[in-house]
């Protein structure tokens, strides 16, 4: 049987810390197939670990390579990179909004840009997903005028809209009500069952320890290294 191409693959990836915006990482190896979830436990307070920008080809590693759907980001031209990034959704560690667009435009932006779906169709899906997280109305204002907690949940909505190949969640529970964490986990499990690969970066023990997430591979950042965690034991990732 032909081996299935990994959705995301890190091979010996090293990034040296070049600024306050990037924490260094060293010799990261892991791959993520269709429908798999990788949970990476982060040390509390350690920010700017560049796994998400590397996974999206927004940051070139100092050594090693990152492939998306079997192709190294470095081998794609700018136009191909944009198309491939259109198959990835991301919840940002910090602020992830475009302030000169209103909230609904932000939510529909990627889907309307990369697909032929109408705005109404996408808005309908957005409203349905928002309802799952207890948001009955989508604010009509620009993001700067919306409460951070609402924005955080709307970032979850944006990550789940459409049919992405990969969802990257960078500390998605930061700033969100604890009571909503199970709803996000359930939505992520559903996406994974549809074949979406999920990379979940978190320092929340509930997620790291959660046994209901399905096909999960667990890792932990130990300094600059990624360590695989299985049945309570740790080994080099």
């Amino acid at each position, binding site marked *: 049987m032909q081996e299935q191409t990994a959705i995301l693959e890190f091979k010996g990836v090293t990034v040296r810390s070049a600024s306050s*915006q990037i924490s260094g990482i060293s010799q990261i190896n892991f791959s993520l197939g269709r429908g798999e979830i990788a949970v990476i436990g982060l040390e509390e307070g350690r920010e700017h670990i560049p796994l*998400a*920008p590397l996974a*999206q080809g*927004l940051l070139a590693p100092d050594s090693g390579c990152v492939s998306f759907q079997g192709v190294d980001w470095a081998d794609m031209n*700018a*136009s191909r990179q*944009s*198309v*491939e*990034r*259109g*198959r*990835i*959704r*991301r919840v*940002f560690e*910090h*602020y*992830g*909004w*475009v*302030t*000169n667009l209103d909230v609904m*435009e932000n939510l529909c*932006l*990627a889907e*309307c*840009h*990369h697909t032929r779906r109408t*705005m109404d169709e996408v808005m309908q899906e957005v409203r349905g997903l928002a309802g799952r997280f207890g948001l009955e109305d989508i604010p009509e204002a620009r993001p700067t005028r919306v409460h951070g907690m609402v924005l955080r949940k709307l970032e979850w909505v944006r990550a789940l809209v459409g049919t992405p190949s990969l969802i990257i969640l960078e500390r998605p529970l930061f700033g969100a009500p604890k009571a909503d964490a199970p709803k996000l986990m359930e939505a992520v499990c559903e996406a994974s069952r549809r074949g979406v690969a999920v990379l979940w970066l978190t320092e929340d023990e509930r997620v790291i320890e959660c046994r209901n997430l399905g096909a999960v591979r667990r890792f932990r950042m130990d300094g600059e290294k990624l360590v695989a965690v299985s049945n309570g034991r740790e080994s080099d990732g």
Partner: protein
Amino acid sequence: MSFIASIGQGAINLYHRIRWIVSISAAILQLAFRPSSWTKPVRMVLTRQIVFTGYDAIGFVAVVALLAGISVVVQAQVWMGRLGQSELLGPLLVTVIVREVGPLLVNFIVIGRSATAMAAELAGMKVRHEVEVLDSQGLDPLVFLVMPRAISMALSVFGLAMLFVVFSFGSGYLCGAFLGTGPGDPGIFARSVVRGVSSYDFYNILAKTLIPGLLTGVIAANEGLSVEGVATDIPQAVTRTVVRATLAVLVVSVIVSVLTYI
């Protein structure tokens, strides 16, 4: 570094800057002619920019055109009448208003009103990491941010220049008629202006509006997006935009005039 070396280094830097701006402009034109670039969100940005740069500026451009029309057209009418050369009124007005003053003033208005705002807006987006947010969603900043802004600026400058010409001739004629210095009959005035227009004037106004408009948009976007994560750099980016776009407009205007009429 010696004086000569610093001049040489400055010339090399200027050459690289011009080559960079021309390359981006060429890339934008190439993208603009590709239908797949014009997705719904990109069309939305283009529409908003045309409204902001073109439509919202009509009032201000109209006022400037009225005032320019009164001062230039009335003076031309008076002096041509005194010299007994009233038949040269049309060609003179076309030379002054259509070929030079109209396009230049409109370009300067757009630089002051819109290019500065554009540079500040894009610099703010860069500082707040919003460009990365767009990029991470597969929206190429060149396609989503720069292309619609530069194209809208070129189209707006052209449209506003046409309005400027109409308003300034209209106000000049009306003021001349009111003061008794003009030809009186609007038909005579219109015919003398039309006689002064040649086919070169059409290419001239196209070149003096579309090219500088595009360059102004590219320069503003380039300066805005060159800011590296510090909000205090935004005013400097705006200042550089005004200086460089003004220079670009003047240089293009001189080159087009030389190529068209000499």
